């Protein structure tokens, strides 16, 4: 033990703030819109989970109600052209939307994050190739890529997820690359190098944790974009094949008969809009909460 122990400092100056995450959580909680978004999304999640085991009526059996009938006490959102209960299909449709939304982002993270980290940290030839690829992919219209992939791989939920992820990985890669470029200049990264840390350790132990904020925000905004893209594909008839209900598909089916049975279009459209809004509010809330320089 050193004889040098001068006044042993026993008290940090801010014992209340346990960590940066709990601080962010506190800020997020105070954002009413974000909170509303979270509540709504939880609600959708519950509905989607419930729909796995139970829906008021079967989601695919035809003829359980009078086709094209509007909302009634037995069918809260009416019945579609084939006599299927809209509410039940809406509930099941939530599953597709959530799976597509989250699934694409998982894939986007899996592709974009490592590529972005490596390109931003090591620079050089690899970075040049990656930047070229990113710009290349940005140059090709999303819809074209998605169409081609769905055509080649065949329409299925998995393939749709892959197709959408292929059109969106560049956003994440570019973000992560930018974060890495700026973080690698920070003094604590230099300190880690000076202390003998290997590049992998620096990337995973220092840069990634500090880039998590923007990454999470980006992913949160990416979910509604993916859901919308899927709805759009479904609307074009290129989405998940029937009879699986998807919100976009339901709207597509109902659009021709919109005058007779507006509920067929309105119900899934509203569901879609609310879900997209909720994710966007959440994303905004996260961005404000995670900004370390946020005003109190």
């Amino acid at each position, binding site marked *: 033990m050193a*004889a*040098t*122990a*001068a*006044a042993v*400092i026993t008290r940090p*100056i801010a014992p209340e703030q346990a960590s940066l995450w709990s601080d962010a959580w506190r800020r997020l909680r105070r954002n009413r819109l974000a909170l509303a978004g979270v509540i709504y999304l939880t609600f959708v999640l519950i509905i989607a989970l419930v729909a796995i085991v139970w829906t008021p009526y079967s989601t695919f059996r035809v003829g359980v109600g009078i086709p094209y009938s509007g909302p009634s006490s037995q069918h809260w959102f009416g019945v579609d052209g084939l006599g299927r209960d809209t509410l039940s299909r809406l509930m099941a449709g939530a599953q597709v939307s959530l799976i597509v939304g989250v699934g694409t982002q998982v894939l986007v993270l899996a592709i974009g994050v490592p590529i972005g980290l490596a390109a931003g940290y090591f620079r050089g030839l690899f970075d040049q190739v990656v930047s070229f690829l990113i710009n290349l992919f940005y140059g090709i219209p999303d819809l074209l890529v998605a169409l081609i992939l769905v055509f080649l791989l065949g329409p299925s939920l998995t393939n749709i997820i892959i197709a959408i992820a292929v059109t969106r990985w560049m956003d994440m890669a570019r973000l992560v690359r930018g974060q890495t470029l700026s973080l690698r200049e920070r003094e604590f990264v230099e300190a880690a190098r000076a202390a003998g840390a290997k590049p992998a350790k620096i990337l995973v132990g220092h840069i990634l944790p500090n880039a998590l904020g923007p990454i999470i925000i980006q992913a949160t905004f990416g979910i509604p974009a993916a859901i919308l893209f899927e709805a759009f594909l479904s609307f074009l008839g290129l989405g998940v094949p029937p009879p699986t209900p998807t919100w976009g598909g339901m709207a597509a089916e109902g659009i021709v008969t919109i005058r007779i049975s507006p509920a067929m279009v309105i119900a899934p459209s509203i569901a879609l809009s609310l879900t997209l809004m909720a994710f966007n509010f959440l994303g905004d809330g996260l961005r404000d909460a995670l900004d370390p320089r946020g005003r*109190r």
Partner: protein
Amino acid sequence: MPSPILKVKDLQTQFLTHDGIVKAVDGVSFDLYPGESLGIVGESGSGKSITALSILRLVPDPGRVVSGKVLFHDKDLLQISDEEIREIRGRDIAMIFQDPQSSLNPVLRTGFQVDEAMLAHGKSKAEARSRTIELLNKVRIPAAASRYKDFPHQLSGGMRQRAMIAMGLANAPAILIADEPTTALDVTVQAQILELLTDLNRELGTAIVMITHNMGVVAGLCSRVIVMYAGQIVEQGPVDQIFENPQHPYTWSLLKSIPRVDALRHERLRSIEGIAPDLLHPPSGCRFHPRCPFRVEKCFTDEPLLQEVAPGQVAACWVTMERARKEMGADELVDIRPGAASGVHPGEII
């Protein structure tokens, strides 16, 4: 003895944060006499910068001046209208800041920015321009006429600060407040700027309020000094007296903790133990007591007021260095704080 041009009385400035109220300036009073150079010295959290900003009502959100008076020629600056204070800023009382890089607009020519200081107070463009060149010469910027057209990034740090000083002096103010104007500059440049300020103070008779944490700067430039700690004035007086015979233990400790370039031998620095005070929950009694080597029981409970300890010198301390020397042998430094290993810190005896 001329009467003061600025009288600050019991100034209180607070910041409303969601963790609580921070009393950044807590009852500060002082006078400024025409043409004098007054130093306000303190470390971070002392309140020195906020005091200056409060005088000109420039305290940023969420800060508020909650009480007190700032009398300039018998007008209370805290009470006059927004229009009136804007007139006074830049014309009667000017302020220059630490980082000339961020105080100057990078997309406007330097000369024009100095012009602006005058255009805002009624001069014509032609008048402003010729005065600007005159000022740039006065602050010793070489080739002033051509520098007029330069953008800030084309000037070095030292020259930018000179341009700031020119801006400050443009309307021949009675008072120039300088908030750490040389902290971001190299040592040789700092010395030149300080010399410039000394000369300007003498030639133009502009009173200078020099806010700094550097005791050497105060020693060279100022005739009187105010020492601040945790939002309060702990000692005040003529510079010669304060440096030779500081009466407040903080002032004394601060002077002892500074290494001197002209020291003859290596003496261990006498550091002030502990950390800067928490302005959200300031210590009870005397705010310096947790770090003070000479505290007595009273210091824990009663807040000391400024009292005269020598002609023209006041200090807020129950003990004062005079007593500390006589009764506690302050000059043979022994750490008497309870909790220190054995009452004596190894290596701390000078």
